[in-house]
């Protein structure tokens, strides 16, 4: 087994999956919000809802495209770099991913085309239906991914046949208790991402004094949604912590930065974990709080990392710091969502420029929280790929050469940087331009032959618009 090819494969997987998760986290929430907007527009008839819809649809289009192309890579990577893993867990994980593809991707892909190009060709109810189907598809996709990943965290319902895992009890796999706390945790994270991006955009327009009606809709809906969702998310975060405490004690100890058994345990707020000395430096901790968080008790014994052999421990620093960054982002978001909603109700938000700036600059917070949350979950699972069963080192393609792995890592870095740079540039431009353009109405005649949904801002070079007609 070639250690370097293993390390490169791990880097490549971490890089490509981190890149990928940014876009679904954004589009899952955005798709649900587009559905709400379209429904509001159909019921109230207020044109501002349509303007906001069309505006966010363009951004959705760019982000969704990036999510799709980086997602296809993920589907292949299990086979290219992790073929030992793929052949061993295929009967379970391959099946779960096939459910994702069957139930989610076709909903998304087919109705996404209608969303982007179909407005002039379908009746309004069908357009709303298509929007809802895209949202449903993104949610299904998240569900199956969480089932899949939860099986890697806490494998259940399997038997071992001829060195490979075989499903013994599908109900145990699907109704794994871990799935039903982690799936809501991820879904809420995605909705929060959408909410903060929308609110931040609204804040930006108010600061610039533009698009007042649309900006108020974005700010109000984004902040109120976040004000409800952030506390819910903190609750689910705590429940996720409970499963880690019970099912993955070594990961829990790494997150807590707890090296030795403690009774009652203290909670390390911040420290510099030193893996060679097996202790924390510059530690600030609160007595008893560790037992309270871990077991809801003032006296419980909490296990430390040194209970486990060194070869079964995850690296400590990454889960330790990633977890703290995630929680920090969560608390900041809670403050902004509550204070912002309060100011919104009091009608003072328009004058409070400092608050508007803070909300504007808050849009990276949910992304950072999602990435660091996943770092905590995945790095904390090491050295296992299937927790307690299959080591990451045994999962890699046995004949993968360092040369091939180096080339692929470099190519992915180059291609992803390239499309990420342009993707963010285009999204930035769309945001800067704002909700402008002429609305196109749904077909009234039997022969639809209208231009595409929204005409671009006159500042972009105009070329004749195309549409399909009979």
């Amino acid at each position: 087994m070639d250690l370097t090819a293993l390390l490169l494969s791990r880097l490549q997987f971490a890089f490509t999956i981190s890149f990928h998760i940014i876009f679904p986290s954004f589009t899952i929430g955005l798709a649900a919000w587009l559905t709400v907007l379209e429904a509001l527009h159909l019921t109230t008839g207020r044109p501002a809802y349509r303007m906001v819809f069309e505006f966010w649809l363009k951004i959705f289009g760019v982000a969704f495209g990036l999510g799709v192309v980086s997602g296809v890579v993920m589907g292949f990577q299990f086979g290219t770099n992790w073929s030992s893993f793929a052949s061993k867990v295929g009967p379970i994980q391959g099946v779960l991913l096939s459910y994702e593809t069957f139930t989610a991707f076709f909903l998304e892909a087919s109705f996404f085309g209608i969303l982007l190009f179909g407005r002039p060709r379908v009746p309004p109810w069908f357009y709303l239906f298509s929007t809802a189907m895209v949202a449903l598809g993104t949610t299904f996709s998240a569900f199956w991914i969480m089932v899949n990943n939860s099986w890697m965290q806490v494998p259940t319902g399997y038997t071992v046949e001829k060195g490979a895992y075989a499903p013994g009890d599908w109900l145990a796999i699907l109704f794994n208790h871990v799935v039903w706390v982690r799936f809501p945790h991820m879904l809420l994270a995605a909705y929060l991402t959408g909410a903060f991006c929308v609110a931040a955009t609204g804040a930006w327009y108010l600061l610039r004094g533009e698009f007042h009606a649309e900006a108020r809709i974005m700010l109000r809906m984004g902040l109120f949604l976040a004000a409800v969702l952030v506390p819910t998310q903190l609750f689910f975060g705590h429940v996720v912590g409970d499963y880690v405490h019970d099912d993955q004690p070594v990961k829990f100890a790494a997150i807590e930065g707890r090296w030795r058994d403690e009774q009652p345990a203290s909670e390390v707020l911040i420290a510099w974990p030193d893996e060679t000395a097996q202790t924390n430096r510059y530690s600030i901790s609160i007595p008893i709080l560790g037992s309270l968080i871990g077991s809801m008790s003032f006296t419980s014994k909490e296990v430390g990392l040194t209970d486990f052999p060194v070869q079964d421990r995850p690296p400590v620093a990454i889960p330790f710091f990633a977890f703290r960054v995630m929680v920090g982002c969560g608390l900041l978001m809670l403050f902004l969502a509550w204070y912002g909603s309060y100011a919104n109700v009091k009608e003072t938000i328009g004058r409070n420029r400092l608050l508007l700036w803070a909300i504007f600059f808050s849009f990276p917070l949910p992304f950072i929280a999602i990435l660091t949350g996943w770092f905590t979950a995945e790095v904390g699972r090491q050295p296992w790929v299937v927790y307690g069963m299959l080591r990451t080192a045994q999962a890699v393609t046995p004949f993968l050469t360092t040369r091939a792995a180096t080339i692929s890592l470099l190519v992915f870095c180059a291609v992803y940087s390239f499309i990420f740079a342009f993707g963010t540039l285009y999204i930035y431009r769309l945001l800067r331009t704002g909700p402008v353009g002429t609305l196109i109405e749904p077909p009234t005649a039997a022969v639809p032959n209208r231009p595409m949904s929204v005409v671009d801002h006159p500042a972009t070079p105009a070329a004749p618009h195309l549409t399909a007609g009979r």
Partner: protein
Amino acid sequence: MITFWVAVLAISMLLYVLLDGFDLGVGVLFGLARNEMQRRVMLSAVSPIWDGNETWLVVTGVILWGAFPVVYATLLSALYLPLLVMLSGLILRGVAFEFRHRAERTRWVWDIAFAGGSLAATFIQGMAVGAIVEGLPVQNGVYAGGDFGWLSPFAVLCGIGLCLGYALLGACWLVKKCEADVRDKAYRLIPYLSLGLLVFLIVVFGYALAEDLRVMGRWLERPYLLIFPAIGIIAAIVLAASVRRRRDGPPFYMVALIFAAAFATLAISFWPYMIPFSITIDDAAAPHSSLAFMFWGEGLFVFPLMLIYAAVNYTVFRGKVRTSTEHY
């Protein structure tokens, strides 16, 4: 159960080849467009449907992983570098659809990305099929060919052949969907592409005879397989006739039929091997509990739904793409 999943796999692969085949083909031909108007028309002919088309590739991949994990693991790891190129190509052409529309001064970058990405992905797909047909070096169920074990003149030839094939499919799609100069141009290209494909088939046949590929023996053993080449030949004749008469509808279906015939010829001539001639369908199949779980949910209920979604998508966007000048 195994037979059912082999059948769904075959249908998905064929749908991928036919559907993404034409939009990759349009991408290959995109480089030949003369002006912005033609480029826009060509893109509009595939924009609303390409994502669904490409999803069939993912379907093929995950059926392989879930139902035939050994084949998924062996093929994908053996074709490591080619797949890297294919995925990069698919990424660049995929983002080009939206990015090109958003770009101002850098539109040419995405034109190159769309055409180049489509060409690279097509070439790799053809080359991979060629390498698999020729036989990947597999010892005791493990690939043993190194980084470039898939590379051979035959595989490269198949890559070029598929570029011609997808381009032909793409040209016929443009004939079906477009009007005016784009359609006329596609009509002019069809004879050249068809001729190129014919030359390719003759060369491949000759190569296979000369190299005495094992697959040739199987064709000779099973003369009833000749029905598929026969269907292909009839479709080619109808194609020639409808192109001559400038009938926009039939050429696409005829080329699709040629592809389907070629696909069936290949698939049946390898039966029961999944990786010729080392791993059979039964060797590769996942445990019954996996296949049964797939069957009772996604196989029986979701698969027909998927076909319906795709059909809805194509129905909404049926008919010719037109240039609209209402706003200008």
